């Protein structure tokens, strides 16, 4: 289990929790992720639903914007490739094509952006049965390259501003959707709801 987590380090903890950023990146590289960049973020969430169902929802990339706040849309190009449009500050968007580099039904989806991506990135989502019949553990590991330059700085803001928090929030929304069929909102009126979105 989780062979990619265990390389030379002395424990069984996931690479994203390592105190040594470089080691962690090496380790991810040693696994199925081809690291595109030097920023790493990883998060695990337990979802009280069967693994097949959770995997199937994620594998349909077009539905990801439902719970990923920054993602405007994901267009399917073919079985392996998709086109991503992601919100950036000041009403801009950044875009890239992404290709699936590894896929194991019900277990793993790994991807990497192709040449010319505005924000080079790669990552993997692992799905495991949670112990004790608690559903599915979903782990997201994302490596990305914050862009340089003036526009880059703006763009970097959304990605660098606590990317771990962003990943955590997205995973929570995914969990809410799977467990409750909706995404919790505290808005009172439709107007407030739309302002928040």
């Amino acid at each position, binding site marked *: 289990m989780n062979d990619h987590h265990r390389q030379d380090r002395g424990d069984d903890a996931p690479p994203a929790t390592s105190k040594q950023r470089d080691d962690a990146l090496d380790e991810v590289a040693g696994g199925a992720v081809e690291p595109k960049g030097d920023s790493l973020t990883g998060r695990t969430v337990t979802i009280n639903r069967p693994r097949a169902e959770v995997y199937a929802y994620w594998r349909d990339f077009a539905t990801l914007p439902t719970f990923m706040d920054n993602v405007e849309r994901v267009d399917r190009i073919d079985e392996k490739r998709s086109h991503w449009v992601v919100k950036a500050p000041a009403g801009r968007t950044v875009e890239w094509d992404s290709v699936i580099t590894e896929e194991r039904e019900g277990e793993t989806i790994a991807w990497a952006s192709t040449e010319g991506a505005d924000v080079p990135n790669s990552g993997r989502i692992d799905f495991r049965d949670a112990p004790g019949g608690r559903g599915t553990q979903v782990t997201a590991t994302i490596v990305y390259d914050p862009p340089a330059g003036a526009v880059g700085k703006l763009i970097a803001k959304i990605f660098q501003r606590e990317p771990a928090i962003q990943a955590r929030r997205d995973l929570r929304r995914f969990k809410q959707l799977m467990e*409750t069929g909706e995404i*919790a909102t*505290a808005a*009172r009126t439709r107007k407030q709801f739309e302002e928040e979105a």
Partner: protein
Amino acid sequence: MRALTWHGKHDVRVETVDDPEILNPRDAIIRVTSTAICGSDLHLYDGYIPTMRKGDILGHEFMGEVVETGSGSTLEKGQRVVVPFTIACGGCFHCSKHQYSACDNGNPADNQDIAMELYGQPMSGLFGYSHMTGGYAGGQAEYVRVPFSDVGPIVVPDGIDDDEVLFLSDILPTGWMAAENAQIEPGDTVAIWGCGPVGLFAVQSAMLMGAERVIAIDHFPRRLELARRFGAETINFEETRTYEALMEMTGGIGPDAVIDAVGLEAHGFFVDNVIDQIKASTFLGTDRTHAIRQAIVACRKGGRVSMPAVYGGMVDKFPLGALMEKGLTLKTGQTHVQHYMPGLLSAVMEGKIDTTFLISHRLPLERAPDGYRMFHDDQDEVTKVVLKPGMH
């Protein structure tokens, strides 16, 4: 609609705001018929709770009539419901264990970060209680949007008065869970700090659970009198040395179980809170009380400590040694309201629990600011204020 909004310390107003709307399939809209001001609301009124914003609608104890339902709601228009103050989804691991106040999904994703930092994991959402617990609009209003309406609200039959069932929303289950957490055994003596609504329902619950003696502690004569009405013996901590009295009253053993129903605004409690805002507004002395410390020290060896009282951050000089050396058990938490509602509704309908004794004042919603002031300024006289949006 009209709603009671928060604007800062000791500044609440009734204003006209937009009506709530159905936003998610499992939502329902409730027209509020009765809503209470809680001791916890006073923490907001006094400005102790961070992450409040101007214009937030308060209130987490409310009931009313279903006027609109989303496609996933199991409620029907016209039903009368009492709404739990905890917003829980019913589908996560914690909800499956009936730990509703620990629900993973009741709090919107973006609001979970603060609690994650403070407590390690986020708790459920709460109505009308700051943005850390969701930022949901509360029930001191004419209408409320109730999320997850298929698992939260309990339908009450016609013919039973609002005043009899309103407290199912919070303080009755809270008092009950406090007594349950005290793991009362036959022959037990249970000591309860605080004779507010929570403490008084804990007194009744402890009696129903078979406590042989209940000793209630407060400094308000009228509140102590109410405790006595339900069979408790009393200690007025302004007149009596509490620890000594408890030891003497229990033959030198100490109470078998102790309940702290006082909380973070305990008169004089010293709170060393991690939240700077609370720190800044807290210049209380250390002498006026120490309910939880005193409870732990008074508790008999091998006894049980139940703490329904709310704390937000760090507490200084916590008697960890006494807890360990005496082998005490500590149980606490926000109430898992949904778990207790059905059983307690039956108990109320069968007349086993008295709820209406608590209400000292009934006011129209328009007079809510007066209600806050009265409740804040005269805790002896004012035991519970119920606001009635329909009343003029």
